[in-house]
């Protein structure tokens, strides 16, 4: 069948009286890996389900390879989805799960088995065919679910938080595995996630969503260094926000500046201060916790609590200077729109 591009045109979805998705328009190039990222309740899963045909549209159109699929039943759409719970059928074996979609398409038994074996070896699960799905580990189930979706050679692969039910260590290794597999198969993939690290590590393009609307569409680096507004920045780990003071190295017209804790340093009197242009604030240390490789320091600056890093431990109550290199500052205007992002 080959992979296809996806385009969403003014997609709106209503659930009772609330507008869950508000005129979403998005072009997803063929063969790309796109992440729908956002806090829970932002409509990202609903958007994915609407592409698969499980959420009826109030308005708009969905096209795969130029053909509208908005009015088709889910079974006619050929969009393969991997569910968050994997949704494997426990009354069928691993091979039974994999071959069921092929059985629906009327393929002869020998061909079904051949394809199932090919998928199993692609996923590194050779010989698992006769096993019961209930005997598999979480990571193995996730791979079988992925295989069951890929076996129909779909134009589009939809992943609904596929890694969220796994242990942190497996999740990290499967991230890379999933990404490699996607590139190998070359299939257009849309993944829903609420985990910014996952999105940044895996996606070609990230669609940041909030309250049923798209906030920003950007590549991982651009999104990280230049989020569209303060809300987006905060979701992407910009955890310190300050009002701009006259001497700050902020952009022209900025009223707020934000920075990530890992970009800020704390200096006490006996330490050497940096010379490079930087945002500097004097304050009192409130907390100091070891964070592996360094210390995370909480500091009170004129009633605002900020956080920064320190190579050496500092004591709560000490006077300290918080300093952020000018290049690591993000400047926002009075409407919290981004004026200037991080400059590398």
């Amino acid at each position, binding site marked *: 069948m080959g992979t296809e591009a996806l385009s969403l045109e003014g997609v709106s979805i209503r659930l009772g009286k609330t507008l869950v998705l508000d005129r979403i328009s998005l072009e997803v190039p063929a063969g790309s890996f796109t992440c729908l990222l956002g806090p829970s309740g932002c409509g990202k899963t609903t958007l994915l389900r609407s592409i698969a045909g*499980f959420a009826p549209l109030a308005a708009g159109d969905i096209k795969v390879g130029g053909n509208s699929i908005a009015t088709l039943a889910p079974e006619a759409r050929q969009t393969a989805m991997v569910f968050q719970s994997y949704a494997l059928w426990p009354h069928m074996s691993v091979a039974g799960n994999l071959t069921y979609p092929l059985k629906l398409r009327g393929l002869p038994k020998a061909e079904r088995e051949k394809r199932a074996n090919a998928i199993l070896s692609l996923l590194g699960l050779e010989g698992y065919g006769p096993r019961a799905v209930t005997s598999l580990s979480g990571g193995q189930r996730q791979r079988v679910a992925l295989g069951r*979706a890929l076996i129909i050679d779909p134009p589009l692969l939809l992943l609904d938080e596929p890694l969220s039910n796994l242990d942190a260590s497996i999740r990290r290794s499967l991230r890379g595995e999933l990404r490699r597999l996607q590139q190998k198969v070359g299939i257009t993939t849309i993944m829903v996630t609420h985990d910014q690290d996952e999105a940044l590590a895996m996606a070609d393009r990230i669609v940041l969503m909030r309250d049923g609307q798209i906030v920003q569409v950007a590549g991982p680096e651009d999104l990280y260094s230049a989020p569209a507004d303060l809300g987006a920045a905060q979701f992407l780990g910009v955890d310190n926000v300050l009002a701009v003071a006259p001497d700050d190295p902020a952009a022209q017209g900025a009223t707020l500046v934000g920075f990530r804790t890992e970009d800020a340093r704390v200096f006490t009197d006996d330490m050497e201060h940096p010379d490079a242009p930087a945002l500097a604030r004097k304050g009192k240390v409130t907390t100091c916790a070891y964070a592996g490789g360094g210390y995370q320091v909480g500091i009170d600056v004129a009633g605002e609590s900020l956080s920064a890093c320190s190579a050496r431990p500092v004591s709560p109550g000490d006077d300290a200077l918080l300093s952020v290199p000018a290049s690591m500052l993000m400047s926002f205007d009075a409407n919290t729109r981004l004026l200037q992002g991080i400059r590398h």
Partner: protein
Amino acid sequence: MSNLSATLRSAGSAMGLAIAMGLVAFVVFGPLANLVIWAFAEQWFYPNQWPTRWGFEFWGRVFRPRAGAWESLWNSVSIAVATVGLSMALSVPAGYALARLALPARSLIMLIFLLPQAFPSLPIFVNIAAIFYNFGLNGTLFGVVLVHSLPGLVYAVWIATAAFSAVDRSMEEAARNLGAGPLRTFRDITLPQAFPGLMAASIFVFLDSIDEFTGTYFVGAPDIATLPILMFNASMGGNYQIAAITALILLIPSVGFMLVIERFLKADVLSRIGR
């Protein structure tokens, strides 16, 4: 010393346990034992503590072709099977629909479904008999099956709803997503998942029907004699032997199905009943 008292205490508690178990066994098995004694007693008159003659004479009498035991057994079993068929035919779609319904509406419908059980059954059956009389259903097998389906449906719908709610919706969506239509999904995914629960529902309906007396009496008698009716007639006539033997015959399907229940009824299905 303390050793001795501990031994005594444990001996005492063991004795207490034995007495408690003996009491439970008496309450549970006492009537059954009495039944078994009656089934094999040929002669047992007051004030004798035990039957004065034992034997199989009454068994021969019960199973004589004209005694009606075979016919009632056949009636009972075929009515029960038909009741299961009718109840399940209605409760599978109803249970599925209820399981997929939003919660407040579902609870209300389930409650309404229980309502007939809240009324005393006798007036209901008397009225049903009066209504059936108009349709010529009294004294027919079909009429009895309908009456048995009334309580049967309550069990069946409740358990079927629980069984279908236990099926993860995303499993159905996965099948739809990969190319199965709604009916195919129901047959290949939903039904096999719900099967143990549906089996349990069938068993409950079967047991309830095999045992049913009041409705059968008002709608079926005297044309349709089931085993409970036969037993009632025998008891009323003072034929305790025949009543006991009929009761033992009734035990066979009941115990058999209890064994099947044990195999099919999973705790997770039961726990969802009425949710």
